[in-house]
């Protein structure tokens, strides 16, 4: 359904309070009805190409530069792929636990960032509230305690990353076959000091997200929501495992599409499509085909795919979450926020569990085995399932790299959400900034990382041009974000 004579085009560019740069185009017909709405990712990153010809041991450090928000996810995913290349099928307990600690620190800080900085303005003040207050500064003014928690939770997560990787952002902890450092007792004690406070605050955040979702459920149930398949990795016993496991996909009714698929076999069950209007690829489940095979990933999907969570507070929270929809998966797009906070609580519990494990102080850091020419790594990143796949030649140089990042998997779902919200809230109305923000709210639920690299953080202006059929400007609304 393309542009037709008489259509008006609205562009939201850039989409704010998301990671990276994207824009939304909305086509209105002569009656002002939404004909089409799309999220475009306008950045081109090219990592898959320019990493070719580089030594494989550079991958965990080089490819993490894709992102400044969850580089740890790329760092560990690449490291897991490269583990296979160096024949390290089973890491030492110290290496495995140091990496898991780093990963959960990443989840904690990334989820806190999204909830408290990026999503909170919409949830606290309303989607169409005063734009001058609907930002992180507004949150800090109206709810200073909440804003402070967001900052300190993020800081704690980043400290966990620092003690495991050497730096808060873009460290080097994971190396082929293991890690380059353990966690000292001093580092452990420093992190443990704030653990009880972090668990308490994470519990409070779960409560906040739950109360918000339940008290607005009538409105949210229909807000950019739709039935879909869901995908993630899960542990062999079905537990939520953010670091390692096999692929599981379920349909909209919760029936298994596939389960127990080892990471190395991902291409047997998933394929990727390309479209002319976006630099993102469109992955799909092979058996369902390119049109119906799209699926969702991320916190909501993980609550749907996992059988249980192996930490008690998060498991209790998950049960409450799942009780809303009974045996069926939850498809409410805005419930991503609630699910995200359950995972934040789980991450804090896991960090506590790991910090009390003396394996963290072990000195056996690296294993190597029989060299292979190919490796696939999969982790659950904060935004969803992340795939890294490399092939290397006999000279140790990378010849092929394929990355499927979480936001790519959520590409079709985000476009569906955008279209659904645009049709419901914009059709036939005078377009206002507040109405346009509804479209962005639906996108933000997914916490997309559009480039995996840059920050918008509410500082960028929103400019919407209304053009007539001849391309003449008939109306312009500008939101100055500075």
């Amino acid at each position, binding site marked *: 359904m393309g542009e037709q004579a008489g259509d008006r085009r609205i562009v939201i560019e850039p989409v704010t309070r998301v990671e990276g740069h994207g824009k939304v185009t909305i086509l209105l017909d002569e009656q002002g009805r939404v004909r089409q709405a799309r999220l475009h990712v306008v950045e081109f990153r090219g990592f898959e190409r320019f990493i070719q010809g580089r030594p494989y041991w550079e991958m965990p450090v080089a490819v993490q530069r894709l992102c400044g928000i969850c580089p740890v996810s790329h760092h560990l995913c690449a490291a897991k792929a490269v583990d296979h290349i160096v024949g390290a099928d089973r890491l030492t307990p110290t290496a495995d636990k140091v990496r898991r600690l780093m990963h959960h620190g990443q989840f904690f800080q990334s989820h806190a960032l999204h909830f408290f900085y990026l999503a909170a303005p919409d949830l606290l003040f309303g989607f169409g509230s005063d734009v001058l207050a609907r930002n992180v500064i507004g949150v800090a003014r109206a709810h200073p305690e909440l804003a402070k928690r967001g900052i300190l939770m993020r800081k704690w997560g980043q400290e966990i990353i620092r003690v495991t990787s050497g730096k808060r952002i873009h460290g080097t902890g994971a190396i*082929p076959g293991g890690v380059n450092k353990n966690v000292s007792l001093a580092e452990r004690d420093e992190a443990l000091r704030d653990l009880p406070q972090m668990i308490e605050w994470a519990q409070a955040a779960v409560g906040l997200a739950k109360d918000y979702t339940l008290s607005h459920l009538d409105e949210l149930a229909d807000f950019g929501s739709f039935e879909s398949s869901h995908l993630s990795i899960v542990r062999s016993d079905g537990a939520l495992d953010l670091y390692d496991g096999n692929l599981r996909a379920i349909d909209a009714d919760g029936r298994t599409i596939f389960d127990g698929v080892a990471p190395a076999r991902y291409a047997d069950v998933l394929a990727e499509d390309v479209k002319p209007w976006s630099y993102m690829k469109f992955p799909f489940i092979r058996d369902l085909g390119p049109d119906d095979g799209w699926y969702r990933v991320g916190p909501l999907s993980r609550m749907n795919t996992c059988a249980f969570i192996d930490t008690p507070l998060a498991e209790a929270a998950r049960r409450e979450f799942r009780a809303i929809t009974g045996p069926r998966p939850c498809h409410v797009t805005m419930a991503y926020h609630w699910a995200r906070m359950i995972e934040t609580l789980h991450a804090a519990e896991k960090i506590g569990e790991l910090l009390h494990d003396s394996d963290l102080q072990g000195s056996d850091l690296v294993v190597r085995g029989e060299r292979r020419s190919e490796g696939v790594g999969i982790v659950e990143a904060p935004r969803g399932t992340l795939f890294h796949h490399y092939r290397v030649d006999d000279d140790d140089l990378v010849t092929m790299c394929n990355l499927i990042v979480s936001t790519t998997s959520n590409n079709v779902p985000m476009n569906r959400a955008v279209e659904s919200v645009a049709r419901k809230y914009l059709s036939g109305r005078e377009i206002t900034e507040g109405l346009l923000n509804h479209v962005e709210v639906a996108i933000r639920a997914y916490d997309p990382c559009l480039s995996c690299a840059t920050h918008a953080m509410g500082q960028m202006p929103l400019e919407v041009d209304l053009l007539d059929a001849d391309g003449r400007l008939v109306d312009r609304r500008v939101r100055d974000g500075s």
Partner: protein
Amino acid sequence: MSNASVHANRPSSLTITIDGREVNAVRGQTILEAAEAAGVWIPRLCHFPGLEEFGGCRVCVVVANGRSCASCTQPVAPGMVVENETEQVLETRRAIIEMLLVEGNHFCMFCEKSGRCELQALAYRLGITASRFDALWPKREVDASHPDVLIDRNRCILCSRCVRASRDFDGKHVFHFAGRGAHKRIVVNSSGSLADTSVASADRALEVCPVGSILPKRRGYDVPVGARTFDVAPIGAGTERARPEESR
């Protein structure tokens, strides 16, 4: 009267001044050596202790008796007045480092030599956050054909340390220069492929590389951030720590 007898009559010790401070030196020393012995650090990239001087990188530039020169090759002379840390000298060094940074393809953010790289460490110490010059983005080759050693020419600064170390330390003559000007590059003394040379990962030619150009394979990032050479102390700190207490 022979030259030998002339020299024999001249005292071997002499005095120079570096940035206004009197420094004892020995006839035959270079300015860089005399400064080093006195605990005064002069930046350098091609100079390496025990290797014949090359005088190629020019990072050790000083002003001696009013004239710019490479301190690694300029011998000391009695009463010589050396400017080492004047703004003019520092600015010349910054310009040289910035030119080196744009001449190759230097990506510190994922380079395995990061934290141990002398070029990076010099840039930090001289306060360089970005180069004033446009990057040239040259197309350079990686030779990973050898099972244990890799050359990444993207990062080579043509300092010739590997050429001299392979010849004088390792006794192998593995590395040489080929080409001129912008086309000058490091080559190996075989079919052109590193795999066909006698290089080994334990060769000192690898150890002396100031940047991440000649590397032992599969060891990248094994030292954690915080424990790498220049995480522990900035470049030059070792020389400066050795400076006599009374002259600091």
